[in-house]
């Protein structure tokens, strides 16, 4: 389905040798942290929309993929903001000759623009399709988002074509060469960058939920009518949740498309990444932001752990089994804890 960029190069070591090998261990750690950050970013976007509006957004992956496409359009295709600077100024040239290596600053500006467009897309979707459904059964709204997913995904497939769209690497594909054991590991600068951005987003969200709007969102999630009676503009809170969700989706989509070491770019299967992050949401609990982060980390840990150390299993369960591991983890978790680790248990009144 999607390229398994996170799986290390196949080594010839046996299972026990691998388990104690520092080189394999270091690679495992980096891959796990990167994938964990990506899953967490996606899962948090889901959870914020669900928490505030009780809507399960199946179109999240399509928005994420479109976000990656926006980033490509802005940074690589239109070369914004480089094209606006006069020839010879500090920003008019790129990092090197290659179009895929823009300056960090120009790349970040492009990413912010793309995130803004995706946030706008989230707002439009909410106003057009979700707002009219307030008060309808939750399942109907979830199916509406499936409809949104189909048509956004089709549009995405159409604009993306058969060739994947590269995001470029603001760090010029630079890497540290770390001596681990008696070997040298390549650590792309983009890898810690993704992890750091993930952490920053998590901190920003914690701060947001303590701010005025965050408290209003929590109140809305708790009881819409009571929140309205307190003077909270519930409709605006809904819109805000979708805006944040869209922005986070675009961020996650772009990072997925540019994540080292594959640098695969936005391809036709990118919309499905969100379906792989769904298990993270379930494991953490549908309505818990910290749960989404923890869930993303757990699912990524199991996926990368099995991919790194149990690669030989593919002889029995087929190639690319890493992609379905999140779902298996989800099954097991639901059997043990039906509402996830941090989710609120549904209290059913008779």
């Amino acid at each position, binding site marked *: 389905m999607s390229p398994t960029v996170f799986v290390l190069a196949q080594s010839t070591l046996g299972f026990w040798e691998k388990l104690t090998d520092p080189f394999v261990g270091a690679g495992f750690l980096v891959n796990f942290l990167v994938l964990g950050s990506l899953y967490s970013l996606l899962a948090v976007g889901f959870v914020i929309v669900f928490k505030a509006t009780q809507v399960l957004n199946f179109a999240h992956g399509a928005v994420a993929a479109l976000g990656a496409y926006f980033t490509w359009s802005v940074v690589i295709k239109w070369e914004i903001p480089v094209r606006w600077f006069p020839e010879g100024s500090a920003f008019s040239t790129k990092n090197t000759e290659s179009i895929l290596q823009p300056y960090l600053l120009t790349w970040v500006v492009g990413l912010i623009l793309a995130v803004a467009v995706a946030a706008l897309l989230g707002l439009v979707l909410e106003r057009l399709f979700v707002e009219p459904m307030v008060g309808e059964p939750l399942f109907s709204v979830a199916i509406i988002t499936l409809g949104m997913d189909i048509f956004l995904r089709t549009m995405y497939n159409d604009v993306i074509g058969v060739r994947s769209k590269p995001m470029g690497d603001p760090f010029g594909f630079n890497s540290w060469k770390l001596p681990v054991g008696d070997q040298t590991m390549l650590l792309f600068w983009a890898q810690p960058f993704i992890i750091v951005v993930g952490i920053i987003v998590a901190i920003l969200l914690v701060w947001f939920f303590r701010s005025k709007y965050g408290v209003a969102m929590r109140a809305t999630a708790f009881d819409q009518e009571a929140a309205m009676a307190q003077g909270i503009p519930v409709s605006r809170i809904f819109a805000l949740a979708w805006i944040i969700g869209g922005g986070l989706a675009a961020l996650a989509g772009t990072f997925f498309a540019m994540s080292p070491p594959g640098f695969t770019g936005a391809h036709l299967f990118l919309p499905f990444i969100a*379906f792989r992050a769904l298990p993270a949401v379930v494991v953490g609990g549908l309505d818990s932001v910290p749960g989404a982060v923890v869930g993303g980390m757990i699912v990524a840990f199991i996926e990368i752990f099995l991919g790194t150390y149990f690669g030989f299993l593919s002889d029995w369960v087929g190639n690319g089994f890493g992609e379905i591991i999140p779902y298996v983890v989800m099954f097991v978790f639901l059997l043990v804890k039906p509402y996830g680790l941090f989710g609120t248990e549904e209290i059913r009144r008779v």
Partner: protein
Amino acid sequence: MKGFRSRFYTSYESESAILPTRTQKVTVAVLVVLVLLAPFGVIPGMRFLVEEPSWFRILARMFAFGVAGLGLNLLTGVAGQVSLGHSFFMGVGAYTAMVVGGEGVGFGTETGFIGYGLPIWVWLPAAALVPAILGAIIAPAAVRVRGLYLAFVTLGLVFIGQHAFRNMRRIAGDSEGGRGFQALELGGFSFTRSTDVLGQTVHGNAVLFLFFFVLFVIAVLFHKNFVRTRTGRAWQSIRDRDIAAEVMGIPETRYKTLAFAVSSAYAGVGGAMLASLAGNPGPATWDLNLAVVMIAIVLIGGAGTTAGPILGALFVVILPELVEGATGWLANLAKSGEGMGATLADFVVATGPADFGLISVIQGGSGISVFDFNNIIYGLLIILFLIFEPLGLFGIWINIRNYWKGWPFTY
């Protein structure tokens, strides 16, 4: 006209009959006669079917979707359990049919297909039985969770199933081509070859159409009887209020498991029918899109009703044909290049590589392909139906009927 409008049910038997009113009896009888006569070309308005026999394949496809849709309707519409994993069970049914009924090419070798070559009266029930057992096995996990969490569980099934089908080469065939479906025949009579009936040649597609119609009618009867008996009442009470149902002594877990099993059996038969139409369905056939199409059939038709999935299947199968026909017509109009209609059509469709258009009827034109356009229409229709008419096509029919029932006092 006396007593025409005020017809009340006077007994429980008459209310729970398969066809409670005279209007319904007449409508269904007329429809059945029309379907049975259609392959012979004796009805003036339906001659085009005989002249263009590919229509029969399209309608047979509708019956396949209808059978699977009825199954999902039992689970989602009647028992109230959301399932996004219907396409997984359809795939299981299709591959069961192929393993039981298909020829074992190179049986025992590394690259060959597993197949036992048994007749249709073995493989068709097997295509229902194996998914049903699988559904019953999965049900305990699904019964523990409710609502949106259930949607997650069943969605996971689709992805796990995709992986399994892709890796079971000896059962499902190559992920590129898939494996060929066995010939549909019973005791030497082929359902896909032309035959002579009363001195008239009936096209092979029409024979297939009639055979699928028979299967479809059996499925509808079972569906209706499930709904109107003890099982159906238990399912509906679980759907409406599960705690109340339990308090009333309905064993919730057992009935939910039964709903999963029955719905999966329907899916298996529908999947086998669909696979036999497709010829060699690749593992990618049973993906998320198919699951959403099944949901669309139930929702567009009208969840919880028997007529709903039938209407939904008709809609879902005919719509792409209509879109294709419409774009073809627009392309011809644009090529003729006369009048304002041509200008408008030229704006909508792209007929050449350099031509601008929103939809392109050729490879590599500007705008989206007809196939993609169909997908977008699907997505939008699901959204619009849910926003404006939550009861689906059936709800629209109810509105029209109620309008005319009290006419001219329609307020």
